[in-house]
């Protein structure tokens, strides 16, 4: 499957321009959580993403779900940004586009690299309270009560606004997008495209310059065993499996599974 992945073996970074522009699953849950909040507490939802021009598709999808406006940070200098650089760029975009924000919601991680680092790092950059891996949330008088499962503990936490949370995929199942919503999102979408200059990052540094990490190499580990292949009906295969490996399986499960003559 590696050959189908658009990563550049020279730089070891993902050619994001070639990845189709679909909202990351956890971010979709974050947007749903925002839309539910908006139902009870009228507000404006701005969706911000960073990437090549095609990432605009992500914003259109978000607008179709119900977001009010979209901001795309696109700049050739962004390439090669690691999580530290990405969080700096996104935090500066938030400060520029939404200086009076109440709440930032992020997906808890992306499905491509799953570092889960950008949300907590934006929290630090914005210097606001933040909570990661949020399952449920409820807003009362500018205080957000959240619930999450963290390392085997069910935690209830209160966080004053403004603040930042990262949202898991356990709750807030995303709504379906209506056809009319989708049409509107493509005809009269409120989308602004900003580059690094627009958000005050005009020092000429590239994403890669701002990134303390370097990728030495990227490789696909190959594990192939000289294995036994079994085919046929499920019942027969299972008989054969337990007959042939009764010691191994029985030993591991601590039960006698030998076929007894009766």
């Amino acid at each position, binding site marked *: *499957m*590696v050959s189908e*992945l658009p990563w550049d073996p020279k730089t070891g970074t*993902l050619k994001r321009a070639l990845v189709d522009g679909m909202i990351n*699953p956890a971010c979709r849950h974050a947007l749903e959580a925002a839309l539910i909040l908006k139902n009870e507490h009228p507000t404006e939802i701005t969706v911000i993403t960073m990437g090549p021009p095609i990432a605009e598709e992500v914003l259109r999808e978000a607008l179709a779900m119900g977001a009010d406006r979209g901001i795309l940070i696109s700049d050739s200098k962004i390439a090669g940004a690691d*999580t*530290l650089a990405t969080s700096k760029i996104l935090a500066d975009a938030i400060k520029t586009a939404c200086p009076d924000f109440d709440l930032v919601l992020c997906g808890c*991680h992306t*499905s491509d*690299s*799953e570092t*889960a*680092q*950008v949300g*907590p*790092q934006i929290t*630090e950059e914005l210097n606001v309270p*933040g*909570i990661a*891996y949020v399952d449920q949330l409820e807003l009362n008088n500018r205080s957000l009560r959240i619930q999450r*499962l*963290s*390392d*085997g*503990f*069910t*935690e*209830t*936490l*209160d*966080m*004053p606004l403004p603040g930042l949370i990262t949202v898991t*995929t*356990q709750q807030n*199942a995303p709504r379906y997008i209506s056809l009319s919503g989708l049409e509107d999102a493509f005809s009269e979408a409120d989308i602004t495209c900003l580059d690094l200059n627009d958000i005050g990052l005009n020092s000429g540094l590239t994403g890669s310059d701002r*990134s303390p*990490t370097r*990728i030495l190499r*990227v490789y*696909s580990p190959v*594990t*192939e065993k000289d*294995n036994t*292949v*079994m*085919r*046929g*009906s*499920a*019942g027969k*295969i299972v008989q054969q*499996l337990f007959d042939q490996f009764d010691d191994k399986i029985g*030993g*591991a*499960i601590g*039960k*006698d*599974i*030998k*076929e007894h003559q009766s």
Partner: protein
Amino acid sequence: MTMNEQLTEIWVFGDYRNYFQNRVTLQLLSRGVELAQKTGATVCAVVFGHEVDEWVGEYIAHGADRVLVIDHPELKQYKMETYVNLMVQLIEDLNPDIILIGATNFGREFAPRIAKRMQTGLSADCVGLDINEDGIMVQTAPSFGGNVLAEIITPECRPQMATIRPGTFQEIPHNYERTGEVVKLELPDNLPEERVKLVQSERSTQRFQRIEEAKVVVCGGRGMGSKKKFRKLAELAALMNAEIGATRPVIYANWIESEALIGQAGKNIKPKVLFSFGISGAIQHTAAIKNAEFIIAVNKNPKAPMMAMADIAIVADANQVCTAMIKELKRRIR
């Protein structure tokens, strides 16, 4: 880049909250000791909390040369902002070269915030750590849609930081004869107040799975077909005293709670026998099961990567084989 850098100190964050279920701190001490031997560094555990002498003793018994402790009633429960402030202050005072943090939920929120404050690099959920000829730590992490592994370094900024997936390394057996230096530090009085308030914290009613230590694991993927069919794995697992694991798509589909995730952002396992049902085998998952001794994989697609790494590759419908196994085991076990 500093050539032939001499490391002096490797820090391991003491994440003791689930000491008996999650041994990641001990596993990191163990790998820390190996890395330190290559460079002459010392391994230092950092412990924040209240009445933590027990953990301090355990960390020394498992390989720490030194333990930095801040013991105060204020720290009785894990507090993110306070712990970040304390750690950053210690790093600024003592300049460690490397900081290793277990990829628990807490660790994966804690580490990026520290890295941001220190303006240094951080790799996530590593499955390998080594020191190269220049004395730089090479961090191996699954990446890019989970199909490849990346080797990452932080050549210039310090400290070099990584979170490491639980189960990646083997802990050193405890030795209570070992001695180490315990450095007790005062809680600074200039700490900003924690902005996030912990209202309630309860051990989850779900049994805390010790899947990392399980002898038999039954893992299910999207190929099981549906949430209802996936639940059959629980019956099979119960018959075999096995733990249940799952892949990312199954967690996304909400067929089982996220605690069951095997692979990136989840757990590594090393069972004697692993049953893999309807799993195609993205590296996010396969990197986490490579230490399984004997793998039986069921998949309709004989070319799935999971089948290539199995000892027994069963080409069939995962759900049907699961059902047949339940029936056959019930007949055989008496």
